[in-house]
């Protein structure tokens, strides 16, 4: 019925009006806003979903009184779903949230396997979607965006670090220790590994580093003696990898057995070693590994929705759950800051075109930083609309810093100078 009216009016009305006609289908009371939230709670990437229960609790508490927008008080309902670290499930739960739950805004986080299918489903349905914690090149190029061509994405938005932030962090971190500038790399044959090989490799070479790349290996490989022999022979004093966590644990133990770790002065890991549990699990040989963070409790930003500073967020998580803070905490909460800000800024949160319009110029403070979609990321000199870059800050996992077995110590802040530096990088000596 509404659809017919919409079609008849279609010729006369501007698209925005038509959209609002269609989207006002009253499956939920008009005074309720529904926010869909998809993250990996189970499966290989489930570590990212771990702070969800706490973060969603904070967001529900903050939304309890509803959101006052344009003189109307809307109640807010958060519907969270598990993407199971699997693209097909991510697409399925996203479609369910769009069609059955009729969500007004979608949020998604953590790894391309979960986020990209959700963004694709929202793009197809014209539902506004905001996502994070996928290197933005993997989100943009991985979904069909092309270098030098206009962005194909209308309703999906993203904020995250990219190759440039890794490059900045590495080139500010590595000179802190004297090395022969020979970098052994273990970049696997998967989406992340190949993207890094293509984009980060050339940048590091330009910066004067020699890359020793034995070539891509398959995820799930159980023996790395071929690569280790080559790294020893070349005396590679810097090591860099973007593996799935179990592969790094296998590699690093074999590297210690076969004597490569004695050559390593900087062990720079990414994609694994994000959470303290992954580093603690390595035992003694985890101490002193260098990594990067996208949020830490020392960051000078607060959550605009809950009013909590980064420190309060970290402390609250530790006292409530009894577990050490991890960087996903700030990133997951930042999604709800963006949601509250864009729904308010739209003036009409049930109108998808208004929400999409408001996203394009949104400015909001979140624990991970001040996000501003009017200043988009750029790729090969062309602006990439809908995408905002956020920092990666380099540092080192050190034992014996606090009451926890291991702590992340920040050693550089090139991609956000407001984040305080705690120490300098020390050579890796745990072999």
């Amino acid at each position, binding site marked *: 019925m509404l659809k017919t009216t919409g079609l008849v009016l279609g010729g006369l009305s501007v698209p925005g009006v038509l959209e609002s006609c269609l989207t006002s289908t009253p499956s939920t009371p008009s005074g309720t806003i529904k926010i869909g939230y998809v993250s990996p709670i189970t499966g290989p990437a489930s570590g990212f979903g771990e702070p969800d229960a706490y973060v969603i609790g904070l967001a529900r508490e903050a939304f309890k009184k509803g959101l006052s927008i344009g003189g109307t008080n809307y109640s807010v309902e958060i519907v969270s779903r598990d993407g199971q670290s699997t693209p097909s499930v991510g697409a399925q739960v996203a479609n369910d949230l769009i069609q059955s739950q009729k969500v007004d805004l979608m949020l998604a986080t953590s790894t391309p396997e979960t986020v990209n299918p959700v963004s694709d489903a929202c793009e197809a349905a014209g539902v506004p979607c905001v996502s994070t914690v996928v290197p933005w090149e993997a989100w943009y190029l991985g979904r069909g965006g092309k270098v030098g061509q206009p962005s194909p994405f209308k309703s999906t938005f993203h904020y995250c670090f990219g190759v440039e932030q890794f490059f900045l962090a590495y080139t500010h971190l590595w000179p802190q220790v004297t090395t022969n500038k020979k970098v052994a790399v273990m970049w696997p044959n998967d989406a992340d590994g190949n993207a890094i090989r293509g984009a980060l490799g050339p940048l590091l070479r330009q910066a004067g580093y020699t890359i020793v790349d034995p070539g891509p290996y398959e995820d799930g490989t159980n023996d790395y003696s071929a690569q280790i022999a080559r790294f*020893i022979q070349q005396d590679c004093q810097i090591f860099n990898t973007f593996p799935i966590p179990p592969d790094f644990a296998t590699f690093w133990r074999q590297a210690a057995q076969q004597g490569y770790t004695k050559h390593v002065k900087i062990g720079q890991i990414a994609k694994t070693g994000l959470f303290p549990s992954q580093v603690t699990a*390595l035992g003694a040989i985890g101490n002193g590994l260098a990594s990067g963070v996208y949020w830490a409790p020392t960051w000078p930003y607060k959550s605009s929705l809950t009013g909590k500073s980064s420190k309060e967020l970290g402390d609250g998580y530790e006292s409530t759950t009894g577990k050490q803070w991890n960087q996903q905490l700030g990133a997951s909460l930042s999604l709800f800051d963006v949601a509250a800000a864009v729904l308010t800024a739209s003036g009409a949160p049930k109108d998808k075109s208004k929400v999409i319009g408001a996203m394009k110029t949104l400015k909001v403070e979140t624990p991970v930083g001040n996000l501003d979609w009017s200043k988009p990321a750029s790729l090969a000199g062309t602006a990439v609309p809908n995408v905002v870059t956020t920092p990666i800050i380099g540092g080192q996992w050190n034992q014996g810093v606090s009451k926890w077995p291991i702590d992340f110590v920040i050693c550089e802040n090139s991609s956000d100078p407001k984040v305080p530096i705690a120490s300098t990088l020390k050579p890796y000596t745990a072999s």
Partner: protein
Amino acid sequence: MTIVNAVLQGIFLGAFYAVLACGLSIMFGVMRIINLAHGDLAVLGAYATFVIVEQTGASALIAFVVSLPLMIVLGYVLQLTVLERSLKAGILTPLLATFGLSIVVQNLLQLAFSPDVRSLGGSAGTITTASWQVTSGLSVSALGLLVLLVAVLLFGGLQLFLSRTRVGWMMRATAEDADAAELVGIDSRAVYARATALAVATAALGGLFLGIRSVFDPVSGPTQLIFAFEAVVIGGMGSLRGTLLGGIALGVAQTVGAQIHPQFAVMAGHLLFLAVLIVRFGGARLRLRPV
């Protein structure tokens, strides 16, 4: 020298695959069950050891000895409650039952232990990183040697058990023809329960080595199951001695493959697996017959 090192590391890796595959081979040999939950049972065993390490601060190797009886009891219970019933319902039902069991074990572990990765490497002491440097390109790791030694003892012991002991004879007789064995007074129910208990115990041993070599989380099982399964097939389904050799062949194929190109490592193992399948079953007439 690089090729010597590659073969040596391949033998160590293959011994690990063989230990993982041992229980799979036992269950197939005795009951014709392909246990899809075998990898998850190995991970469950690793968690059992992990809990004891956490509680007592003991070395992982000692904690494993404590957790072993628990896993053996679990094997018995598993056979009597789940597998025995499914065996009565035809060939396909045990396969589906173990598939379901795999999902249940993964989710229970996730509930109990969260998705955090764990390792037994730290608590197993210096053996995990110790090695003898023979030349600069050839090193013998203590852990690799330990796994190889355990694998040889395990398979040798099982062989003796099957050929020399009364229970072993009963197991072989039941594997050959369960109904005929019943006729001469063998309780196939008890034999099956013992076989499953043995299989779960060896899975736990595989889990111990997995936990020391690398890290594990509640969903680590299936990735290792594929290699264990390939080891069983390469060695000949149901043959224990074959499983040890099959595991080592798979390990050597992977490490030598990696010398050609790192990307070829896992692929070389899969190619060997396919080649064995083609040689063994290719050309043979595919016949549908009751197993």
